């Protein structure tokens, strides 16, 4: 540690260069953090998928409905434990820009299937008692400042008119990737008030007794309804979500690959800078060697300098990305989960150290091998 002043002197030698190097690392890892958040956002559905949950949707397309009468028929299939359903409501609060998913759900059973959503028992009972009651995820409640007991008007773009709901309960999650933005209310209320589409629901979610049964149960459901006017397509929740990610298409791939190119370029540049800066002070290094500094010590000092740049610039970048994601989803509701997971953060840290070493390694090796006579003899 007593050589810290040497390190400091080297860093301060060319302030602009230090600034540019730190800036490159900063930008590279800010980018890394954001790309990580984008990736988790796209894969959110896959990450939260329950191993023993099945999604039953209309075979033609998810947006086509299924009859309400299927609930009893699905419940009869052996291997299934809980059956619930949901319908897309598709409204908005005050402005179309305020997007969060609203769903009319089978209120008695929905939370039995989605066990990761936690609701206070008393609040939940109040919700069941109120025909116009609703349950909102913590994130949405915080974003719009909704409190228990509030009356919330939702403008229904599909069904028309303004629908008012009473906030009776707020649910929380168990994992950071859980979707805490949903707005849930009684399917019976939708059924009662809508002018058409009666007796239909959006999709069913089936929980099987064990994950091993998902295959046989899904086949059984689809077989049961084949050749009816509403054929079904049943998938595990994971396959359903993965299919969704694939459908979103190569946009994600394009963003990620452009980002990766920039990331690598930035690191190439920083290692080049390090190389030039060491070459430039070869005379000085020769003097240090002459007065007794060992090869190993100088090797170590060069690597430390490189690590200093990568750690301070890179960490700042990662932290800025983290702070940015804490502010929530930048699209205003379309990505319910936008976060840097702890795994991704750890990967970022590893890359910071790895590239710090890598860009310092070659120059440091040069310092290590440097012959005093050669360096002092050079003009």
């Amino acid at each position, binding site marked *: 540690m007593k050589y810290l002043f040497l390190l400091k002197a080297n860093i301060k030698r060319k302030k602009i260069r230090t600034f540019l190097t730190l800036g490159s690392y900063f930008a590279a890892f800010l980018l890394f953090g954001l790309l990580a958040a984008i990736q988790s956002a796209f894969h959110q559905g896959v990450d939260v998928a329950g191993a023993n949950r099945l999604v039953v949707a209309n075979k033609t397309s998810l947006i086509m409905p299924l009859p309400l009468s299927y609930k009893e028929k699905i419940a009869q299939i052996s291997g299934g434990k809980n059956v619930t359903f949901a319908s897309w409501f598709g409204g908005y609060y005050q402005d179309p820009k305020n997007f969060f998913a609203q769903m009319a759900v089978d209120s008695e059973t929905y939370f039995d299937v989605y066990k990761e959503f936690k609701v206070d028992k008393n609040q939940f009972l109040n919700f069941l008692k109120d025909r116009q009651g609703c349950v909102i995820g913590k994130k949405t409640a915080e974003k719009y400042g909704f409190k228990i007991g509030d009356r919330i008007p939702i403008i229904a773009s599909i069904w028309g008119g303004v629908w008012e709901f009473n906030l009776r309960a707020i649910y929380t999650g168990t994992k950071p990737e859980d979707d805490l933005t949903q707005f849930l209310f009684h399917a019976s209320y939708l059924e009662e008030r809508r002018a058409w589409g009666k007796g239909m629901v959006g999709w069913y979610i089936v929980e099987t007794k064990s994950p091993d049964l998902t295959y046989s149960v899904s086949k059984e459901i689809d077989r049961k309804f084949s050749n009816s006017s509403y054929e079904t397509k049943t998938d595990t929740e994971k396959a359903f979500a993965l299919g969704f990610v694939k459908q979103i298409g190569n946009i994600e791939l394009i963003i990620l690959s452009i980002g990766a190119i920039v990331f690598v*370029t930035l690191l190439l*540049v920083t290692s080049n800078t390090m190389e030039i800066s060491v070459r430039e002070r070869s005379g000085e290094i020769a003097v240090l060697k002459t007065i007794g500094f060992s090869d190993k010590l100088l090797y170590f000092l060069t690597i430390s300098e490189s690590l200093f740049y990568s750690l301070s610039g890179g960490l700042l970048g990662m932290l800025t990305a983290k702070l940015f994601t804490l502010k929530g989803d930048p699209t205003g509701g379309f990505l319910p989960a936008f976060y840097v997971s702890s795994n991704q953060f750890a990967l970022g840290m590893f890359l910071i150290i790895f590239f710090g070493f890598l860009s310092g390694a070659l120059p440091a090796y040069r310092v290590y091998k440097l012959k005093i006579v050669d360096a002092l003899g050079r003009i």
Partner: protein
Amino acid sequence: MPVPYTYSLNSIKARKSSSAIAILCIAGVVCVFIVVMAMANGFNKMLKSTGSEDNVIILRKGSSAEMMSIISKEQYKAVGDIMFIKRDSEGNPLVSPEVVVVAPFFHKSTKTNALGQVRGVLPSALKVHPQVKIIKGRFFNEGMYEFVVGKNAANMYEGLELGKEINLGGRKFKVSGIMESGGSLYESEIWCDLKLLQETYKRPLNVFSTMFVKLNSKNDFLKFKEMIDKDPRLNFDAKTEKSFFEEQSRVVTTLIRVLGFLVAAVMAVGAVFAAFNTIYTSFASRVKELATLRAIGFSQESVIGTILFESFILSLSGGILGCLISLPLDNFSASTLNFQSFSQVAFSFDISLKLLLEGILFALVIGVSAGFIPAIRSTKLKPAQALRET
């Protein structure tokens, strides 16, 4: 006397590795700039060209996607009688009843079945959608199992090349033509004969999904909408084609705009840092050499000139290289999900000459301004002092 330009050229040659890194780095910056802008341009072009304002789409109230909507033949006839609708030379109103379904097609790049939108129309639909042009082959013939495939759909899915046959609902359809419509959403669709599609999907012949109407003038829209709203037989929503397609792609638009912009902004900053860093570093380590030039009699201005000239050459070559790297991506088609209808939409990257020139200009601005700092610094040092620097 100015420093001969060959000096700069030789200097670039002499420092092969650092020049190469500077050029590559600037090429990377320019390439990223062009690709991001090309994506944004292509996407905007799709949005802009899809809807004309004198075309109105009519859907059953509350349908968020065309395939959810239902219109009966009587209602279709009733709409045709409303004023403000443009008529062709024979006096027939320009209305187009359409049936919209989705069908799975094999998506080439994700290697899975993806849902594509299939639209059944009458041959006269082209009068209502004049922006649709056949670029290869011909339009389908009435009563024939034929497909007209949007340009993007043809690229996106397997087996939709001209002349090929493909299975839909147990029927073989032959691709008779490829259509284009200025980058619009229709280019992601597949069109065929209305009646045959109804038959194939076992739909009643007197029910359609939606209808498009061409108005005399876009100023008539509000009056036309009022007539629809007032008519008790019609529980319809009328929207201009433009606002309907804007609604349809709102999620995708927001995703692409916000995420694309966010990533592009950070990338641009990073890329500028990188380019600055290389050019700056390469000159800053040449203080001695520049002092030597001063010592042998070249003026301050000409030394600054030579630095700027060298960074100009580096950034120009980087800029051109960046353009060349990005060029193959012109017309590259990106596809994503339409969150309203859950079918695929595609758009093409649009690299114009203007964009390429902007890219090169961008490179020159970064490159030359990065050379500026060391150039100014070199003038502050006295030659004698600089030569003594280690």
